[in-house]
């Protein structure tokens, strides 16, 4: 446990010390909240869908968690480039513990970032339907964070160059976000788009958070959580397997 704890603590300490990273990572969510939230708000309301900020705030929280968790994969490339990874690879501890420590650290950072954005949405005017549901919503946020932090570990274990991660961001992370229903309702989508949204794990994450915070859910909370748990286990196993095969 101490190995997992110390590697988790390392990630959290580095995040809390990096004020620039904290501020910079607020940029995209704020832009989405500001531009889309207020820009599309009137259209959304005229369509009878209610207040757009109420709809999209959970999506922006999901987006923040997705992006932050996936960036933990970059941290791994950084560790590979600057050598710290090798220090952990020659240590007399199972690789699985190292992977879990790193993944939980990345996930915690993502949850902290999601919490910050949640606070921003409250300032912007978002109001949860029930305060009691907020802790439950953050359990779903934590699940999203673990899923994508584990995926980032798997990807970070498989590629060696920063440029490779740029491709991952463009061809995996952005589609995951845009297909998740974070910024549009899932009802009435064209068949292909609808099918794609259903294979995106973030869709269930955003739906779960939205359901708990606003009462509006497409799949139902139970199904959302069940899918997230299943994908979480799958991605953690996949991440551990890729990490066990990491090259020197």
């Amino acid at each position, binding site marked *: 446990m101490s190995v997992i704890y*110390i590697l988790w603590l390392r990630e959290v300490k580095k995040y809390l010390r*990096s004020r620039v990273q904290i501020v910079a990572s607020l940029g995209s969510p704020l832009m989405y909240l500001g531009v889309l939230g207020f820009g599309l708000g009137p259209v959304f309301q005229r369509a009878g869908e209610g207040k757009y900020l109420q709809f999209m705030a959970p999506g922006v929280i999901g987006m923040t968690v997705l992006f932050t968790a996936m960036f933990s994969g970059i941290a791994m490339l950084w560790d590979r480039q*600057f050598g710290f990874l*090798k*220090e952990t690879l*020659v*240590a*007399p501890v199972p690789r699985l513990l190292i992977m879990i420590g790193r993944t939980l650290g990345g996930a915690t950072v993502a949850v902290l970032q999601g919490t910050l954005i949640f606070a921003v949405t409250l300032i912007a005017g978002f109001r949860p339907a029930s305060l009691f549901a907020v802790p439950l919503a953050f359990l779903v946020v934590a699940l999203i964070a673990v899923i994508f932090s584990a995926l980032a570990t798997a990807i970070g274990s498989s590629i060696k160059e920063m440029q490779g991660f740029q491709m991952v961001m463009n061809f995996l992370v952005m589609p995951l976000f845009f297909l998740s229903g974070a910024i549009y309702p899932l009802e009435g989508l064209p068949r292909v788009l609808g099918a794609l949204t259903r294979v995106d794990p973030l869709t269930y994450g955003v739906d779960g958070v939205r359901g708990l915070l606003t009462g509006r859910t497409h799949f139902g909370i139970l199904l959302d959580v069940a899918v997230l748990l299943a994908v979480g286990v799958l991605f953690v196993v996949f991440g551990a397997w890729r990490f066990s095969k*990491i090259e*020197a």
Partner: protein
Amino acid sequence: MTIIRVQHVVKSFGKVTAVNDVSFDVRAGEIFAFLGPNGAGKTTTIKMLTTLLRPTSGALELDGLDPTTDQTEVRRRFGVVFQDPSLDSELTAWENMDIHGVLYHVPRQIRRERSETLLRMFELWERRDDLVKTFSGGMKRRLEIARGLLHTPKVLFLDEPTLGLDPQSRNQMWTLVQNLNKAEGVTVFLTTHYMDEADRVADRIAVIDHGRIVAIGSSAELKQQTGTDSLEAAFLKLTGTSIRDESATAADQMRQVSRVWRR
């Protein structure tokens, strides 16, 4: 007493043979220099001894254990300073030491006491709470060595530890390594391109070229064997004067197929 035994070890990466039928022994408590031109097989040998690579054939032994089957136990017995830096520059010196101590299961109290002893010895105690990114190259190298010694290893591997350091830092570092070797009896296995350093600190020297050991003995023995009056001249006589830069192709091939040998 022998602490490292390498017997007929071969390491191939596809068509490239990096280490070719290498055999040598290292005695407990000695400072052993492993010298060779670029791409001669030094780092590959260290990676095999430190469980990061599995030999294609041959036998390895570290403190009576086989690094191919007893990885965890072998890892407890050595400390290593890699050719490339391996500190977390966003953490403090103390935090880097602490993480290492936890990874090597050093009990908390011992971890603290030994970290303090080593940081004082390596003249880093006053800077223990500073982020490593604010350190000079020499300070970082000293911290890496201190960290490598935290779990009281029997063998310390130093892969070109003085690369890029100024003469003052190099001199200070080797003095510290020699003192530690005497005080703690730790066996030191080092590689370097600075012949004067090997001449100064090493009890015995092995020269590897094209993946094969071409000479082994004390500095005086190597000079006598080659009829030269300096270790550098002996080294050049043994390995030739042509430049041995690793070709990009060979290096790339190695990187592509080399895999950390996992648990």
